[in-house]
């Protein structure tokens, strides 16, 4: 049958670009499998989200109504989705590989007793998927053998869905949850607020590494460049481990994977694990005083220079460019 259900991630009625990326991947998969693509939304603000998501080309939007789904929790969401799969007969359930997608989807797979492909970067016509392994140094073509397939998609590998000509109908469905299976309690969410663009969505990312030597230097040297370029700020694991910047800025195999139009790596040596998080960027620039630094092997343009001189110079040069 080939039907696809896309799980829509949102927080209180607002959804990130990653949700539209998942929808686009779902539409592509459904087209290849000869089925239809539906979106499913649950939680506080679901109605607002559903009305918006309905404009992006899906066949329908299902709103799961159940007070215990108000805040996302893995066990409740897995239960509700598993039940929905059974009633709709969907062949694939898909979500973007965000922290939420990664938290939920394996649980859903186990509940349905079917395998899952994590962070796919391509959908093949023959039903197989391509996914990265070994920090992106190996691509695996995988096949999921089961009545239902569970898939998460890497956000950088697909474009966001575009608004469609028609608006999909919204169906409200009462979710049935078994209270005995609900054991988690949401306590709090401490949002990290920033005026800068979101790291995974920004057109330009400027990242700093251990070469910056301190958190103070991130502020006084790197941030002026970040802001002059209207960029998001990222960091290498070394800089985060050294306490220069908070965890959520980490770009890499086990941090965030980004693929912006322009990635500027400042004072970053270019360990395999860092490259895993940014090597699909369209244009890569590296500024490092060590000409042997591995980062230069992936940089389109490399500047061997002392960043403490080069970065302030670049801030000034950027002011002169009309951008």
């Amino acid at each position: 049958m080939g039907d696809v259900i896309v799980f829509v991630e949102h927080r209180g009625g607002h959804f990130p670009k990653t949700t539209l990326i998942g929808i686009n991947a779902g539409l592509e998969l459904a087209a290849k499998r000869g089925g239809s693509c539906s979106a499913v939304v649950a939680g506080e603000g679901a109605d607002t989200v559903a009305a918006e998501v309905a404009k992006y080309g899906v066949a329908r939007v299902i709103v799961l109504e159940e007070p215990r789904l108000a805040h996302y929790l893995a066990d409740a969401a897995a239960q509700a989705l598993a039940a929905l799969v059974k009633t709709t007969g969907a062949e694939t359930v898909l979500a973007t590989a965000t922290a939420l997608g990664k938290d939920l989807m394996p649980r859903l797979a186990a509940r349905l007793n079917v395998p899952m492909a994590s962070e796919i970067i391509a959908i093949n016509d023959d039903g197989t998927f391509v996914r990265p392994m070994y920090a992106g140094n190996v691509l695996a073509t995988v096949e999921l053998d089961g009545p239902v397939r569970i898939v998460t998609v890497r956000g950088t590998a697909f474009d966001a869905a575009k608004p469609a000509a028609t608006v999909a109908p919204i169906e409200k469905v009462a979710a049935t949850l078994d209270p005995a299976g609900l054991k988690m309690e949401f306590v709090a969410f401490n949002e990290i607020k920033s005026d800068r663009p979101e790291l995974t969505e920004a057109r330009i990312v400027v990242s700093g590494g251990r070469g910056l030597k301190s958190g103070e230097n991130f502020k006084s040297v790197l941030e002026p460049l970040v802001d002059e370029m209207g960029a998001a700020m990222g960091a290498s694991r070394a800089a985060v481990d050294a306490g220069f910047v908070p965890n959520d800025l980490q770009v890499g195999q086990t941090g965030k994977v980004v693929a912006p139009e322009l990635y500027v790596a400042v004072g970053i040596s270019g360990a395999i694990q860092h490259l895993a998080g940014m090597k699909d960027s369209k244009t890569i620039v590296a500024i490092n005083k060590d000409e042997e630094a591995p980062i230069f092997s992936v940089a389109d343009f490399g500047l061997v220079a002392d960043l403490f001189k080069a970065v302030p110079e670049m801030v000034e040069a950027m002011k002169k460019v009309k951008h």
Partner: protein
Amino acid sequence: MKILVPVKRVPDPATTIRVLPDGSGIATDNVKWVINPFDEIAIEEALRIKEKQGAGEVILISVGQQAWQEQLRTGLAMGADRAILVRTETPLDPLAIARVIAKVASDEQPGLVIIGKQAIDDDSNQVGQMIAEFLGWPQATFASKIEIAGEKCTAVREADGGLETVAFALPAVITTDLRLNEPRYASLPGIMKARKKPLLDITAESLGVDLAPKLKIRKLTAPAKRQAGRKVASVEELVAVLHTEAKVI
């Protein structure tokens, strides 16, 4: 409280990984094998909980081949109490591995299963969550802080755009993120003691769970290489090429 810690043997993260010409696997001749870094963090967290509570048992479990004993001994040297090697000649997929570990957990009845969030070889990030669902236990993935008070656990998780706090009663599954702790090194006395700690060797088949592979890897390939770039001589030149050539600013 018993804490069960799954441990995976993976290539050292600094290894240059090469795909075999026929795409059937990776070349292993130059590989140095280590404990998956996230599982090391899991072992460390288990040891800290045991030390804080003044009692308990840290049990390691690996699902793999004979050689994996090496990594189990390293974990025992860090301070774990005993280890279980569930031997399988063919690698199992995450679903089967989770089933195996869930079966052992249902026999051992630990208060916690603490596991690395992902293995740095296949980067699947599935097993912990699957174990939780098979056991019907709560989960806290990508945990950066764990607090246990009696039978209750509060965990801070690295979520998108912020830190999420969740709470639940034990038993539960926790998957570790980088920031949870910094693992200790095995001491020399620890290494000596590890040799005498129990290491149980059983076959995966003996557990009576479904091991049939459902996630099948058809082939491996190397990703397309980026075109070589070039060095620029100055900031001025850099900004100029970005503007006129790459057209990104």
